[in-house]
């Protein structure tokens, strides 16, 4: 069923190369606001539960993007979303293009219909050259998503691994995002 809409949603435009002024102003030396939004997704992350994620976003020339902003959104370890935690804002390094995130591993998400989704962190990406944001998810376990109903019958089984970070110790993760080419990350639309 399609409900009648009275208005169309305002078109997106690129955030441009200077998004830091508005979104992470302290990086540009502007310190006029009370706090910088999304500086940590959870307050007081204990060493015990802390995980570290880092990576780069590669463009079609395989160059890391140095002017991107990534917002992440996730549930807590019990699979529950809150309004005042779980959000972070990261920018890629002006020289290396690397982003870094310290957070906790989210739990399995319990959906409205009672089904359970494998745990993931939502990545929302904007940059110069992106007219619209790119949305992807970092999952933790390839086998888990292969059996998830959402992905089961899709013809992209061979690309599901682009949603899984590299890790040796389940505490430190490397999640690179590729915009094009053989390793192109799966992006979502809703």
């Amino acid at each position, binding site marked *: 069923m399609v409900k009648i809409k009275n208005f169309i*949603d305002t078109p997106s435009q690129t955030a441009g190369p*200077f998004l830091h002024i508005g979104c992470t102003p302290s990086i540009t030396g502007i310190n006029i606001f009370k706090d910088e939004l999304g500086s940590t997704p959870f307050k007081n992350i204990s060493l015990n539960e802390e995980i570290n994620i880092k990576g780069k976003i590669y463009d079609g020339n395989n160059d890391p993007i140095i002017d991107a902003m990534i917002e992440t959104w996730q549930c807590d370890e019990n699979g529950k979303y809150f309004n005042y935690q779980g959000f972070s804002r990261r920018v890629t390094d002006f020289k290396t293009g690397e982003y870094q995130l310290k957070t906790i591993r989210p739990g399995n998400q319990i959906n409205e219909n009672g089904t359970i989704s494998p745990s993931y962190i939502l990545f929302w990406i904007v940059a110069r050259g992106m007219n619209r944001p790119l949305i992807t998810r970092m999952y933790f376990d390839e086998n888990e998503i292969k059996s998830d109903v959402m992905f089961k019958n899709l013809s992209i089984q061979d690309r599901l691994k682009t949603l899984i970070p590299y890790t040796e110790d389940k505490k430190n993760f490397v999640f690179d995002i590729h915009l094009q080419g053989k390793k192109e990350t799966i992006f979502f639309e809703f």
Partner: protein
Amino acid sequence: MIKKHQPLRRFPDYKSSIVRSPENEPLLINFSNSEITGPLFNKNILNENDNNLILNFSKNGEKALGQEIFVHGFVKDENGNPLKDVLIEIWQANAGGKYRHQNDPSNTKLDENFGGCGRFITSSDGYYIFKTIEPGAYPYPNRGIEWRPKHIHFSLFGSMFLQRLITQMYFEGDPLIKSCPMVNSIPDINARKLLVGKLDLSKTDKEKILGYRFDIILRGKQQTYFENKIEGS
């Protein structure tokens, strides 16, 4: 899958979109809890002057240079219902078209009293207002050197991640709008007009500064997927 009122990700006239857009179509999925929830921001994150860019970076109370304007409007959903508690962040160049940013190569001067960013949270009727100065147009490398129309960058958080939006407001009558590849990446010509702030002389402000009205619509839970299915079959 094309939403004609949203820009194409790959639009070759905007050169950097060529290497910064995926080659595969995005995967259309049903949204889940992560899309229908999102961070909320409380008014207590705001200072009194956060929405006044003429003063919020001032040294010794001096005003930023340029044509003083206010930019105001309402944030609504697709059915026209006002959206309260929407965090709006804006950023812009100064009156000479220069950003306070280490990567801005322009040799135009910075204004020591202008930072170029502001914040506001919409009131219960979805209303917002900023005071600022009219930004200058600036050149950028695209197909050779091109000029961006005067614009203010807007970032909005509704109540769920589905509503997250970053966009730009242009200024009514600016002749640079029609040749801007970022504007023209939107296939629906009428939708492009939604990004143009309209001159608004209606508001009698005691400071008598020029007004622009810019209303913003954030999407609801309707799925792109279903709209598309119906159109296509």
